[in-house]
């Protein structure tokens, strides 16, 4: 889902939206909402917050589209808005959060990798995988907002380092170092489970 980054047709849709065509902006919403949902959800770990934030992200983009000059791609621009708004939201929310999603019941069981891991496995192993997913979510929430953003975009969404660097406005080296640090932290958080 995540690897291909189609920007070419966006330029035309953006131009039409800037000219006041609401259908063109709707097309952009349809195209980007699943991707941005994954991004915002993995930052917030809460469906309700994700829904509200995503509405706000597109509302902000709609208000600002007249000022979008095309220096970056629409893809980068809308992702920057989503990441910045999510980080601001998380800063306001502080440590108060609750995970609304039980991962093993929300689509992950349709995942090919998950099926491979669990096929023919015994109930104990299935329970272990569910527990692992739960712990992974908890570990993600222990990361700082900046590190979580990088992990979400790279590991979960499969974006290349260069694209993440553009979205966050940092160097590729910083992206790599944040990833390294975040992976190490996640490894430590999950170490207890691996033993």
């Amino acid at each position, binding site marked *: *889902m*995540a690897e291909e980054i189609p920007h070419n047709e966006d330029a035309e849709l953006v131009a039409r939206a800037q000219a006041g065509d*609401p259908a063109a902006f*709707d097309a952009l*919403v*349809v195209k980007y*909402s*699943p991707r941005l*949902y*994954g991004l915002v*959800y*993995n930052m917030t770990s809460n*469906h309700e917050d994700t*829904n509200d934030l*995503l*509405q706000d992200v*597109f*509302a902000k983009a*709609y*208000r*600002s589209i*007249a*000022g*979008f*000059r095309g*220096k970056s791609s629409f893809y980068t621009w809308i992702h920057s808005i989503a990441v910045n708004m999510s980080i601001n939201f998380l800063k306001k929310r502080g440590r108060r959060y609750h995970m609304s*999603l039980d*991962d093993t019941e*929300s*689509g*992950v069981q*349709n*995942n090919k*990798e*998950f099926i491979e891991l669990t096929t023919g496995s015994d109930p104990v192993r299935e329970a272990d995988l569910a527990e*692992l*997913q739960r712990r*992974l*979510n908890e570990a993600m929430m222990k990361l700082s907002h900046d590190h979580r953003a990088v*992990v979400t975009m790279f*590991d*979960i*969404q*499969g974006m290349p380092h260069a694209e993440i660097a553009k979205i966050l406005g940092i160097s590729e080296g910083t992206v790599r170092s944040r990833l390294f640090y975040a*992976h190490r932290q*996640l*490894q430590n958080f*999950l170490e207890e489970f691996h033993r």
Partner: protein
Amino acid sequence: MPEEDLSPISKLLRMKRHEQPPPEYFENFLREFQQRQRAEMLRRPAWRIALERMQARFSDLTREITSRIAPAQFAYGGASAAVLVIAVMFTANMLQHPGGSLPAIAMDLSQPQVLTAQAHQANQAPVAVEIPVRMAAHVPARFTLDSEVRFPDLFPNEAPRVTQPGQQPGQARQHPRYILDTRPASYEPPFSF
């Protein structure tokens, strides 16, 4: 990145990309977005929309300018230059006034002086109050802010009032005390319970 190159943590994290809501969620999402947009457009005045668009244009322009001409190192350089200029100005000012002495305010104390103050009352013109002051005869005639002034020099007939550190409120005092009551004595009730 090929799957086999991924760390175990990355493999686990990749599973999270399948955490998506059901497909009908996104159909409803667009509908909800359109409804919210319409409601928002009806609520907001046109000037505010125009203002937001202007702000968006300017923020993009500012970001573009700062990314081109003012990266972080230039900002630090500018701040350092500003500090240097302030330091040079301060040093030059110190060199103009060596010793840091204050300009002398001269007052001829051999003649009686009149201090004038203005008091303002509500809805009235300022009232000037003149207080004649005669200093002791042996006070130095030329009196500057640098010169040392002692109490007996100014008021030779008055002994300075000294408050002892250990003095208790009930103890007899050598000098009269003046207490300004918040209420006139005549309004005090004879007894208070």
